[in-house]
């Protein structure tokens, strides 16, 4: 293998793929970055077996030469060193030469590094993509969807399936569901997809999606998505992002979403958020972070919280509109804060079905989002 690569392009590529290099792994090959050349350029791949990132540097773009391939081949080089070496090289181009015993020479300007590589054959194979099974979504919408659901995934491993976000595609509607069994987040969006592509119960680890969020661009460019048996693939201009899927069946969440409500109120999102923030100040150190809300038909909501050792806080906010009966309810303030922080609408609608049953929070202007929180039982 013998090639010349534009250094800035290379640094950029290494930066992006490095996110998938795991620092401690039982599989030695995964501490490296695979570099392989093909007719369209070179591809850098890194993987921690949960996620894999592939970055392709084209031969040229807009008349600028990025890669010059003299001899094809592939090699795995240790990520720890490669990153620093390339960043600190003096000249604009980097020359990479690999002999048949995986000893690679990196040359740039007058400096030369000899680096022991590993056999690229040992690197995990990524699934082959079947181009016809693709659906597309705008990058910024996908990012938003992830942000608005990922916070609700479970952080404990007792039920591994809940550490993921469940994806379902039906017609052109893509739906995300995340829950940690105390609260639930659901978000829908319209995508460009053929009707025969429908799937359900595709569960992607929340961690992988947060990692994906860091890589996706903040514009409305289209991201192609392919679901295979074991992995899901996200495809942007130059990057392919693979994530492994979680094993198992996601619980049926539709049954726990109440269809009727006894009390419906509409609140100003910001006001409510601030009030909850204030109320949780005293309860923050406590175990449950419980705040108590009482809704009276006069149009005022009282929010209070008591920590016996510290003190008590009460706050009042105005209810924009109210329907149904009066109600007193307690819930975990953290769950409410998480939810309100990802709300982008000015007003939210909250539908209660009694002090002991879950309640729904929805923005007033979009029906595509739904959040559900389980109340806390208190004896006061």
């Amino acid at each position, binding site marked *: 293998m013998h090639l010349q690569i534009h250094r800035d392009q290379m640094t950029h590529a290494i930066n992006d793929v490095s996110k998938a290099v795991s620092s401690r792994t039982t*599989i*030695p*090959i*995964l501490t490296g970055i695979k570099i392989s050349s093909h007719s369209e350029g070179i591809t850098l791949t890194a993987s921690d*077996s949960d996620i894999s990132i592939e970055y392709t540097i084209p031969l040229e773009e807009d008349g600028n030469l990025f890669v010059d391939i003299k001899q094809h081949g592939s090699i795995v080089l240790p990520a720890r060193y490669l990153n620093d070496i390339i960043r600190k090289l003096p000249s604009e181009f980097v020359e990479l030469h690999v002999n048949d015993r995986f000893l690679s020479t990196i040359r740039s300007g007058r400096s030369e590094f000899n680096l022991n590589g590993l056999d690229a054959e*040992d690197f995990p194979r990524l699934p082959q993509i079947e181009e016809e099974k693709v659906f597309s979504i705008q990058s910024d919408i996908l990012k938003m969807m992830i942000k608005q659901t990922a916070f609700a995934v479970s952080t404990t491993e007792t039920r591994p399936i809940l550490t993921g976000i469940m994806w379902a595609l039906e017609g052109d509607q893509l739906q995300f569901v995340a829950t940690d069994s105390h609260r639930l987040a659901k978000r829908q969006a319209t995508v460009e997809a053929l009707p025969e592509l429908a799937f359900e119960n595709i569960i992607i*680890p929340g961690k992988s999606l947060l990692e994906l969020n860091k890589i996706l661009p903040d514009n409305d460019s289209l991201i192609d998505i392919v679901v295979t048996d*074991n992995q899901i693939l996200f495809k942007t201009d130059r990057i392919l992002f693979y994530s492994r*899927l979680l094993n198992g069946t996601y619980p049926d969440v539709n049954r726990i979403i109440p269809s009727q409500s006894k009390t419906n109120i509409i609140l100003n999102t910001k006001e409510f958020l601030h009030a909850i923030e204030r109320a949780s100040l005293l309860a923050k150190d406590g175990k449950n972070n419980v705040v108590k809300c009482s809704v009276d038909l006069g149009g005022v909501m009282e929010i209070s919280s008591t920590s016996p050792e510290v003190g008590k806080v009460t706050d009042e906010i105005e209810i924009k509109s109210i329907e149904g009966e009066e109600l007193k309810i307690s819930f975990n303030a953290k769950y409410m804060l998480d939810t309100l922080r990802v709300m982008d609408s000015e007003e939210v609608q909250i539908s209660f079905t009694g002090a002991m049953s879950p309640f729904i929070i929805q923005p007033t202007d979009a029906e595509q989002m739904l959040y559900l929180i389980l109340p806390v039982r208190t004896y006061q």
Partner: protein
Amino acid sequence: MSWQECSDQQRIATILRQSIKNDRVAHAYLFAGGRGVGKRRVAMQLGKSLLCLRQDGDSCDQCHHCLRINSGNHPDFHLVEPDGASIKIDQIRGLQKEFSLRAVESKRKVYILDHADKMTVQAANSLLKFLEEPGSEVTAILLTENPHQMLPTILSRCQVMHFAELPFEKRVGLLKSEGLYEPLVRNACQITADLGQARELCQAEWFAQFRNQVLQLNEDVLEKGSHALVGLQEKIVKNDQGTQGISNLLDLYIYWLRDILFFHMDRKQDILNLDQLEAMGRQALRCSKTWLLRAIQIVMGTKDRLARHANPQLTLERMIIELQEV
């Protein structure tokens, strides 16, 4: 490597191979057997056969699955070994996390737990659930030298495969290759079928001393004097190893007598104490085959009596007298 090369464990190799062929692979195996009987090799072979591209019940050692298992780089093949003295709960958690995800490449996942008896109680308990309800196509292979130290709850969830001990010559060869003295190795391997125990015996100083004492003892016995009884009192009854030591010594005595018998019958290839042929020759001239057979019988009877808590000194003295009176 293929199943053919697991010739030491032919029976197990056949069972496993057939179960792959008939698609009846259990979700969890426990390989039990002494040190050095090839548990790990067979486990690796099973893993390779399950993941190999050929899928014909054997491994090819050429496809990228087999090659990567050999180099430890296969993402769907996990080997867990004790971290320090035991397998810790975090290692099991890591494994559980890994197995909550779908496989990376194939449909199947394999994990090997070496020294599974060294799991901490917490680790073993957290493994339980996961051993019981494997997600999809997961094959667990637990390796242990002490199946009796495993939690019964784990044992009951695995298909237990008992590995046969290695044949005598094989064990001798193995220990010899570790640089141990051959005549000692041959005696030790005769006394115990366990490789580790035999190794310990060969390395112990008292074991080598006992062998020389046995030689001397037989010499004294053949002298027909009272020397034998005095020597017995001085060296043997008061040995540092206690009753177990006497039992080992009698074992050595039996094998020495048997060696003389072999010498008589010209079956030199079976002789254990290869370095003492000269002394053996000298003693062989002074005892008949009938005496040797009778003597072996007496020593075995003595061993038996000692195991039933007879007074060691009286029993041994009786043995000497009996031997001299035959």
